[in-house]
């Protein structure tokens, strides 16, 4: 009767031909073929709207560029790019194809105002082999609501045509030992050349762009003979389709045609326009004590069958929302329900739904509702709600804020001694066969099938395993040994992919517990991941309302055979690894993590990561690991670094599910700075039910 919102279509424009949302009235900051904010091949002074996440594919003569970009804050953005040069052997014999990866960073110094243009400073490809490296400052000013003009100054590649001098001195060449590290010595050095461009909005959907490029394409044109750079002028048209898709076609450098497609997503806001899913049942109000004093008699607690009956009735109401009762304990005045939330993506909403169910089922004498969300058998926190508040605030203005002021969120505490337990939850066997998608690069991945099974022995004790078989894909499965000078703890991926298909991914016995207030623990034994097996132990300290968490992990592992079986004959390699970790929630969704310790190849060092976590569950982040492995030993890339993202499927589809799609992308895989990939690390397991995560989404408690 009430149809799915139309904006859904916009989000799924890639899947369907239906048209999306109406075009923007004002000129939006557009992207260039390199996936960063700009003209055609050149950057501009603008920035994308905060949090914009985009995926760009560009075809430019014999080169392909695939880029993921993220506007990390209002002013700071980053890009991760995969480049392919074809016909690389036109002049110089060798491989016909060259692959390269690079990172960009840009910072907007000034925002546009009446008289001042927007001004951005940026680094392109600042930590690779330098084939694409350049630095720039660019200014952009709008004139009316149809014209934007950009002018800038570029160094590196962007300083190769029409240079006006070297304001900051010579640009030293990179040596192979510099590859993969930030090319700090080169920044803004060497020839500087001006560039410029114009963008004209023709209609709501069509835009014309023209630019004068200061990139001489020295390598592609002069050295490799891939393209002819006949002209510094590029021009073309772009077509915006809905809010999420943009296409461009250009004449580039007088000889080539450029094509680009941008998929532009807004992680902050749901593609469905709002949280979908059915309405809750109304809160059940008790009769007043004066009207029906008998209803408040607590004598019911002595009835022998009261517990199982209450549990059964609650289970029936909660099943509608995919909530399972782990445990139930009560007195005449208080009930504690421990729940497993299988489906609702916001903890606050699961808590609200549980409170509503309790209001219907619990006798009137029960005034205090204690709701304990349980994850992997651990009570993550305890939300205490007074039933009177629930009844009084249901229809009050600003009921979410008012309820939050009266609710307390504390450590879960131990399971009450009078708890009934769950109904048929332990022991329990479950299994599934699902499609599984693995992505290693933009445009590179495998689609396969994963057979998973788990046996829940008792709360917190799980035996689980999974087998993965590839169906189709283009991930490296050459079977070649890595040739790494370090123990190939990661770089034999091609061998694992080839010889272990299908492979036993994991087979573990895991024990999760909350040994003391604010302390959580995990011990996992078995085949922990595709390449390593052994024992992994972890302890985490995280008070419910603390921005800071501290953890420690110790692992002893042996490297597994590449055939995906149970053996350890191929490598004869075992190692003790471990880390101490600090996690900090900076607020506004920024979460940082620092790990210091010993990595799989025996190297010691530290990993820094920062993620931006959105209320709806989107995550985008970056990480870098520096260890005592030298750049030469690490191989391509010098040190381990990369970006990662995770998209909740319900953000786009509006269904109720906690499934996500995500990937971790690295410019190159090395054996230095490699950590064990063990399931169920504690911080992310419990964070969803701590105040840093519950408070931003608290509005959904009444949803």
């Amino acid at each position, binding site marked *: 009767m009430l149809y799915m919102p*139309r904006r859904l279509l916009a989000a799924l424009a890639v899947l369907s031909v239906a048209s999306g949302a109406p075009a923007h009235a004002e000129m939006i900051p557009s992207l260039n073929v390199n996936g960063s904010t700009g003209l055609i091949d050149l950057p501009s002074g603008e920035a994308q709207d905060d949090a914009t996440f985009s995926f760009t594919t560009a075809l430019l003569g014999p080169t392909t560029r695939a880029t993921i970009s993220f506007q990390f804050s209002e002013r700071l953005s980053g890009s991760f790019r995969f480049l392919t040069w074809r016909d690389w052997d036109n002049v110089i014999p060798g491989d016909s194809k060259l692959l390269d990866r690079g990172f960009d960073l840009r910072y907007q110094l000034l925002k546009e105002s009446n008289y001042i243009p927007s001004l951005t400073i940026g680094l392109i490809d600042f930590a690779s082999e330098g084939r694409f490296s350049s630095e720039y400052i660019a200014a952009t000013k709008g004139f009316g609501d149809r014209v934007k003009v950009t002018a800038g100054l570029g160094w590196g590649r962007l300083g190769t045509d029409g240079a006006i001098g070297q304001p900051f001195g010579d640009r030293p060449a990179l040596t192979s030992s510099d590859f993969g590290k930030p090319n700090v010595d080169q920044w803004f050095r060497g020839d500087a050349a001006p560039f410029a461009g114009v963008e004209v909005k023709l209609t709501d959907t069509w835009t014309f762009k023209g630019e004068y490029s200061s990139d001489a394409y020295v390598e592609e044109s002069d050295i490799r003979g891939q393209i002819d750079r006949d002209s510094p002028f590029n021009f073309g048209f772009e077509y915006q389709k809905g809010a999420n898709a943009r296409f461009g076609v250009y004449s580039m450098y007088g000889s080539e045609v450029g094509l680009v497609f941008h998929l532009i997503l807004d992680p902050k806001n749901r593609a469905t326009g709002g949280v979908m899913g059915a309405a809750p049942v109304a809160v059940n109000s008790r009769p007043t004590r004066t009207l029906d004093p008998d209803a408040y008699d607590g004598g019911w607690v002595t009835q022998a069958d009261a517990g199982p009956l209450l549990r059964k009735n609650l289970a029936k109401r909660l099943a509608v929302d995919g909530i399972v009762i782990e445990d139930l304990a009560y007195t005449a005045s208080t009930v504690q329900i421990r729940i497993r939330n299988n489906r609702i993506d916001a903890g606050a909403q699961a808590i609200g739904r549980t409170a509503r169910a309790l209001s219907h089922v619990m006798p009137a004498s029960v005034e205090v509702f204690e709701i304990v969300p349980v994850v992997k058998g651990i009570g993550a926190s305890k939300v205490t709600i007074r039933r009177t508040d629930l009844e009084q605030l249901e229809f009050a203005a600003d009921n979410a804020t008012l309820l939050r002021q009266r609710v307390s969120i504390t450590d879960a505490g131990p399971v009450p001694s009078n708890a009934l337990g769950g109904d048929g939850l332990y022991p329990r066997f479950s299994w*599934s066969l699902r*499609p599984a998608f693995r992505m290693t690069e933009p445009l590179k991945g495998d689609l396969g099938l994963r057979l998973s099974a788990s046996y829940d022995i008792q709360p917190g004790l799980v035996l689980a395993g999974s087998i993965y078989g590839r169906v189709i894909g283009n991930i490296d499965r050459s079977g070649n040994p890595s040739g790494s000078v370090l123990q190939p703890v990661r770089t034999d991926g091609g061998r694992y992919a080839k010889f272990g298909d299908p492979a036993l991914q994991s087979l573990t016995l895991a024990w999760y517990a909350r040994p003391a207030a604010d302390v959580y623990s995990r011990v996992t034994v078995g085949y922990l991941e595709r390449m390593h097996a052994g024992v992994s132990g972890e302890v985490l300290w995280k008070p419910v309302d603390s921005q800071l968490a501290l953890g420690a992990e110790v692992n002893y592992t042996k490297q597994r055979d590449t055939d995906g079986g149970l053996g350890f004959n191929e490598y004869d390699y075992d190692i003790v690894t471990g880390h101490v970790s600090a996690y900090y929630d900076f607020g506004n969704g920024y979460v940082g993590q620092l790990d210091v310790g010993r990595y799989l190849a025996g190297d010691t060092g530290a990993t820094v990561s920062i993620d931006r976590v959105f209320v709806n569950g989107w995550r985008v982040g970056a990480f870098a690991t520096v260890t005592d492995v030298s750049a030469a030993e690490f191989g391509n890339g010098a040190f381990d670094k990369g970006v990662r993202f995770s998209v909740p499927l319900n953000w786009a589809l509006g269904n109720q599910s906690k499934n996500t799609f995500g990937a971790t992308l690295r410019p190159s895989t090395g054996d230095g700075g490699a950590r064990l990939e063990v399931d169920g690390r504690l911080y992310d397991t419990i964070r969803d039910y701590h105040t840093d995560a519950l408070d931003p989404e608290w509005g959904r408690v009444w949803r």
Partner: protein
Amino acid sequence: MGQGVALRMGVRAAAAVCLMAALAACGSSKPEASPLVLAVSSVAKATLGRAKASRAPAKAAAPVTRADIEKFGMPILRAVIPVRSADALLTITDVKGSTVTWGTTDGTTFTQREGVLIQTRGLGPDLMSAQAPSAAALRTAGGTHQRIYYFLGEDDRSTRRTYECTVTAAGTEEIQIFQRTHRVEKFTETCGRQQGSISNSFWFEGPMIRKSRQLASGGLGFIDFERVVD
């Protein structure tokens, strides 16, 4: 040649498995459809919804007669959401004093206090709560009041909008609701804030709101309500 055939078979088998994998996931737990299935069915639903809407705009309920509705023997409220091309007949799901929650069969609810909308659920950009005037205040020409809306925004956060409102009388008229004529007084509530203004309309039959057009949320716009059966 033999190899060629085998290869082709292989590709075909792979394609079949791939299709099966993409379209279905199986297991012991309650099955959740695969993302692809959901995507396809969502698009289908949205497209169907749109096609239906364009074929029979706003008149979908026209063939239903008052006799059809009255034979259920219960109060009925009609809600029309123009931006969704949605038209639904609602029944009461909860009553707490003058606060009545009306629901559709597919899990959408609308809560009114004396006929004034204060909450919606299941629409996406929902009205989570509101500080709203009483029906009597909305029937007092020249009266002023503050109105605050709390929406659940598309960013999953509570969004607050505060308006200063004035009520004006807009005369008496006769309206038809499912073949029944009602003589009503129309009042308009004009609400302003710095970023713009909105207006809600109420058609009173005596002290009761017979018909109204009220803002639900920024993302959804207005809803038309008609009290069909008391």
